[in-house]
């Protein structure tokens, strides 16, 4: 039962009628979209600063509201009311479409993510393939932004972004599908649906001291989990793989020439993307929105924020790799390892079944 169906039922709409179902789905999408935007609003202007400050022994925002939380409102108003400067000879409309594409495509991935307590907009049979497909749409937006800005830093940033995403897309997807070898389906499903990726992870793997350990794929195949986390860091462009933005080398990469609301959208898109990466990790490796005692939605939040915290930790603690090192890590290291992981997983499944 997805959220769209539940809302259709509550409003007395017929879910089999496309128009009725579309109305219900719009409401469900608005709920999920707003929910993710609230997360991003807390993460972007506030949590990111606080976390980095804690790592570097500073205090960061603490003037407006309790714990400086009202800085979120202040920053939103400040950024939206900035003048939009359109640089000379930018390639419109590509320059205007890029922020829309980056922010929009990142939200699109959340359509199939189960968030617990029946919060899931849709549950198609090819959920995993779909989520990988839309997660990589952002690369197109980055190239558009870099190429259309008529700025040499942006151009370099756009090229680096696409080279990086190409290098890490294949290890990411290959590691992701190694999970499908266990589950035997691409449907993400939900906790109570047995023949789905999330449902299959609820079975008991082992019992230690009376506590049942669920067969989350992070426990079943820890090697794939680590590989996926690293590839995911590169996919969302966070340290040590933030070469496309590299503030000390190429100013801000593809977003150098963006100001005002366009900058907000680029920034927003990046953060939604980090959370989407976290949601994919949680869904296919950490048992989705499942956990003891607390309700599913809370566990989902804990898991995606844990992945966000991990990216911010990496950002504070690790030096950035150069673009040539990045290409070599991707094509020579990660790709070979992900092939090894896929073959090993296939052999393990073959022996066990």
């Amino acid at each position: 039962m997805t959220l769209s169906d539940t809302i259709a039922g509550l409003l007395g709409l017929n879910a089999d009628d496309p128009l009725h179902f579309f109305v219900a789905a719009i409401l469900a999408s608005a709920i999920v979209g707003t929910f993710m935007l609230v997360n991003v609003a807390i993460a972007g202007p506030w949590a990111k600063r606080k976390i980095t400050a804690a790592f570097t022994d500073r205090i960061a925002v603490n003037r407006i509201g309790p714990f400086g939380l009202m800085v979120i409102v202040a920053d939103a108003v400040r950024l939206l009311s900035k003048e939009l400067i359109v640089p000379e000879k930018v390639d419109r409309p590509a320059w205007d479409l890029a922020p829309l594409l980056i922010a929009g495509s990142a939200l699109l991935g959340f359509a199939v993510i189960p968030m617990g307590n029946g919060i899931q907009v849709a549950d198609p049979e090819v959920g995993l393939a779909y989520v990988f497909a839309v997660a990589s749409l952002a690369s197109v937006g980055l190239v558009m932004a870099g190429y259309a800005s008529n700025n040499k830093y942006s151009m370099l940033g756009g090229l680096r972004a696409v080279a990086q995403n190409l290098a890490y897309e294949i290890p990411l997807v290959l590691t992701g599908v190694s999970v499908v070898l266990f589950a035997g389906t691409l449907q993400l499903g939900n906790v109570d649906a047995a023949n789905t990726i999330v449902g299959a992870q609820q079975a008991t793997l082992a019992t230690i001291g009376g506590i049942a350990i669920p067969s989350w794929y992070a426990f079943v195949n820890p090697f794939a989990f680590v590989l996926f986390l690293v590839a995911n860091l590169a996919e969302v462009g966070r340290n040590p793989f933030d070469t496309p933005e590299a503030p000390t080398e190429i100013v801000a990469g593809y977003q150098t020439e963006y100001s005002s609301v366009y900058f907000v959208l680029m920034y927003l898109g990046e953060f939604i993307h980090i959370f989407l990466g976290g949601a994919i990790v949680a869904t296919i490796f950490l048992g989705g929105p499942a956990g003891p005692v607390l309700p599913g939605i809370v566990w989902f939040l804990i898991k995606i924020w844990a992945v966000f915290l991990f990216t911010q930790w990496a950002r504070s603690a690790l030096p950035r790799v150069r673009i040539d090192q990045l290409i070599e890590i991707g094509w020579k290291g990660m790709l070979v390892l992900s092939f090894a992981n896929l073959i090993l997983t296939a052999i393990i499944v073959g022996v066990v079944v």
Partner: protein
Amino acid sequence: MGNPWIAIGALALVGLLIPVGMMVISKLLRPSVPEQGKRSTYESGEVPTGDTRIRFNIQYYMVALLFVIFDIETVLIFPWTVIYRSALENGVGLTRVLAPMLVFVGILVVGLGWAWRNGAVKWVRSPRAEKRKDAR
């Protein structure tokens, strides 16, 4: 149960309306003081020289070519992973489900090794950069 793709279409619409809504709000809030000086692109404070659409490193093209090959490969791996377990459970032998995929991946790994040896995934340096390295 409604068609899930209708729901995804609805989310696509919402995902488009949110950024557009923010653009409209910003349009209402922000000032507009057009002036020639601030419209020049940023080039570390200097006056921008030349065009942006210049020649760039051939490496970006090489990795893009490699990507096309391996991305098509992942598309072909997807259906195999889906049927793998149920084929085994229904009594198809391990060699019959695994061996063809091992051959397929093996051929591509040989290809990757060839590209590796030819330097397709090694960063190309311009002759000028090489000369500067030698001089140091």
